[in-house]
């Protein structure tokens, strides 16, 4: 069997596994966020928090909960890093400097997991497990909570109520993320991922002398890193490191983990709005883009254009032998079309067009299938835009799921889709125009520009992967990517929750013969087109200067 066929079969196996999980996990998540029963341990937690989990919240109250929890999280994680030098369990590592601590704190709280530090050389046990890994859980839970609030906005009418943030946060963590991650972590250990607290110790070598290992709680963090679409590696090499991702099976398993919640949430959405078919239409849109991108990526990586790759005879630079080109291509597309940003191979050394595909994947807004929660709400915003475009074409007031898309709704949706492109393009332009930031680039020419464009696309879209040649540990990049991550995460959430509140207040409009059937393939086609055209027009000039220039030259 050739590597191309093997790559294709791996893709099929992945699709099969995702399809098997889709209905049970989607239904389960719908029950988690609809049930009125609390677990006993949850009741204790609510008592500890001092919150009434049955108190319904309007959108401003829900938003205040999100922002307060996230602000406290940033501060806590910042202090933890600043105090590392005097905390026990730090393996003798120093405190992290202020700019890097700010960047890392923001990065993990926003579900981005951009890393300007080297994990194995910077962070001790306490910061890794009680700081970074915790945000891997709760930032994912916050994302799902906001998505569920938006779904409730569609599902409910004549009310301003969107549910209770504390309850959604705790349930998402306890009922979905912790059990899933625990099982996944054990599977990873069984395949060779490490899980210990041995710290820094010497291990003998074949040729004599010794290696120094930094042992830690790797598998437990790896599991939630993928399952919560986080992406922050325990080690610098992320999921390319054999202790994080030891075998070809774990590689596929990790891709499965990072896709399964975002895809299955479309089922949760379908169940909660009372029409499974609406969920399928959204799923079909996500799947079309994902499969299309994977196919393109495999084509360009197997063709290995580019002088250095041609000389080598294959696109193996930055890729591991055990994964090969096929599996690495699937990983690269999946991690950039979700908000994960974990890498099992280094995107900077992909072909010019392959690198462009990863950048474009993030720039689509990470909606196919996107991050945990953020993928679904991002896609629903695009659906609102698509319905609006269709409405303009036929001259009718647009509706979606029985709700009128009036001027208030469309303004909120438009604000949402303008934020991240503005952040990406303005920050990239500023970095290129100023005298010192370009010194951070490793490669020259078009690829150097791509490194900067990649960095801000990744930060503002909360992805976290990088063209890692860029030296991002400078005051400029730590500060600016930090700002891009913060604004790129929380401003969109403001508009999503405002939209949810506005939809929940409406009374439903009955469907008529003239209503656009949003559960049909026609709508899926319209939605895919709207996404590609809107993103394409926004980013085309920037892409032409970077990855397209590099790709077409080779």
């Amino acid at each position, binding site marked *: 069997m050739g590597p191309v066929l093997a790559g294709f079969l791996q893709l099929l196996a992945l699709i099969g596994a995702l399809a098997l999980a889709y209905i049970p996990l989607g239904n389960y998540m719908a029950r988690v966020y609809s049930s009125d029963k609390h677990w006993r341990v949850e009741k204790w937690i609510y008592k500890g928090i001092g919150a009434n989990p049955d108190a319904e919240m309007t959108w401003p109250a829900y938003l205040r909960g999100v922002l307060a929890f996230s602000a406290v999280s940033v501060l806590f994680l910042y202090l933890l890093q600043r105090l590392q030098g005097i905390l026990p369990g730090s393996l003798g590592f120093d405190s992290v400097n202020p700019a890097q601590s700010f960047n890392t704190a923001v990065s993990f709280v926003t579900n981005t997991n951009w890393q300007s530090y080297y994990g194995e050389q910077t962070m001790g046990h306490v910061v890794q497990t009680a700081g970074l890994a915790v945000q891997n859980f709760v930032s994912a839970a916050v994302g799902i909570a906001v998505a569920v609030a938006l779904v409730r906005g569609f599902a409910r009418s004549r009310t301003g109520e969107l549910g209770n943030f504390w309850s959604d946060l705790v349930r998402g963590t306890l009922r979905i993320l912790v059990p899933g991650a625990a099982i996944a*972590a054990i599977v990873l250990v069984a395949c060779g991922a490490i899980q210990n607290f041995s710290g820094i110790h010497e291990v003998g070598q074949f040729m004599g002398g010794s290696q120094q290992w930094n042992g830690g709680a790797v598998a437990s963090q790896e599991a939630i890193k993928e399952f919560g679409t986080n992406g922050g590696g325990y080690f610098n090499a992320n999921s390319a490191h054999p202790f994080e991702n030891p075998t070809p099976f774990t590689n596929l398993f990790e891709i499965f983990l990072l896709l399964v919640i975002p895809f299955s949430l479309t089922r949760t959405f379908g169940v909660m709005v009372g029409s499974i078919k609406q969920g399928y239409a959204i799923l079909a849109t996500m799947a079309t883009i994902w499969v299309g991108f994977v196919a393109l990526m495999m084509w360009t990586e197997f063709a290995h254009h580019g002088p250095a790759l041609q000389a080598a005879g294959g696109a193996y630079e930055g890729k591991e032998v055990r994964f090969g080109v096929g599996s690495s291509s699937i990983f690269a597309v999946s991690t950039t079309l979700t908000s994960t940003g974990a890498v099992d191979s280094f995107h900077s050394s992909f072909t010019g067009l392959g690198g462009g595909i990863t950048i474009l994947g993030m720039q689509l807004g990470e909606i196919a299938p996107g991050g945990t929660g953020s993928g679904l709400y991002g896609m629903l915003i695009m659906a609102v835009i698509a319905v609006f475009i269709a409405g303009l074409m036929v001259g009718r007031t647009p509706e979606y799921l029985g709700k009128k898309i009036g001027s208030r709704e469309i303004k909120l949706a438009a604000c949402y889709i303008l934020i991240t492109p503005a952040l990406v393009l303005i920050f990239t332009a500023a970095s290129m125009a100023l005298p010192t930031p370009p010194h951070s680039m490793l490669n020259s020419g078009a690829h150097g520009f791509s490194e900067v464009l990649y960095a801000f696309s990744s930060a503002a879209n909360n992805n976290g992967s990088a063209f890692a040649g860029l030296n991002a540990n400078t005051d400029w990049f730590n500060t600016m990517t930090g700002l891009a991550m913060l604004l790129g995460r929380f401003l969109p959430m403001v508009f999503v929750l405002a939209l949810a509140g506005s939809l929940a207040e409406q009374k439903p409009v009955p469907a008529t013969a003239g209503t656009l059937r949003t559960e049909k393939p026609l709508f899926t086609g319209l939605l895919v087109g709207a996404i590609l055209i809107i993103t394409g027009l926004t980013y085309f000039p920037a892409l032409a200067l970077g990855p397209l220039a590099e790709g077409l030259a*080779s």
Partner: protein
Amino acid sequence: MNNSVSNTARLFGAGLRALLVLTLVTGVIYPLVVTGVAQALFNDKANGSEIRSDGKVVGSSLIGQSYNLPLKKGQKTPDPDLKWFQGRPANGLGTNSVNTQYKLLLSGATNLSADSKDLLKQVEAAKAAVIKDNSVPGYTVKASEVPADAVTSSGSGLDPDISPAYAELQVHRIAAKNGLSVSAVEKLVKDHTEGRTLGFMGEPRVNVLELNIALKDLVAKQ
């Protein structure tokens, strides 16, 4: 005014308490339970899949190593010890400049682009070296026979594997340097070649450390 200040304080208080409780669950209980289960059920793997030769730990079967001669005077990069099978280049691994307190195992890629002149030079130099090192009397390596993994650095810089093609390419050299027959070394490579998992996952591979340990045993037997 007072009211809104106290409301805000209450909100942040709730946020802080929620974070602390969830830190206890996901940052303390969860990793400890997973570690307990992992250590009990998969002790060897949870601790890094250490591998022994002659009763001594010689590394991890998951982590690639270098098989070099000791540095000569004035030399910056050591020469490969051609008696042993060689792994992939690891040009992405820099020096430990971040944390001078330790000499930790570093991981990382070169991140050089497909159109990078530096990468092109590295690849061409590696290819020339592979051809030179592996061409022995009676066996000449052709440029077209050198597989891509032999001349490129991996993502982690710690790739434990090489492709079967690269292992086979080294067979004649290994046989000559160790005074073994080509067929014995060929058999060794074949025994250590692992196919795709379930026939389709990943790529076929040869674990270099395991192969060299077996080679050492074979040489000792002779």
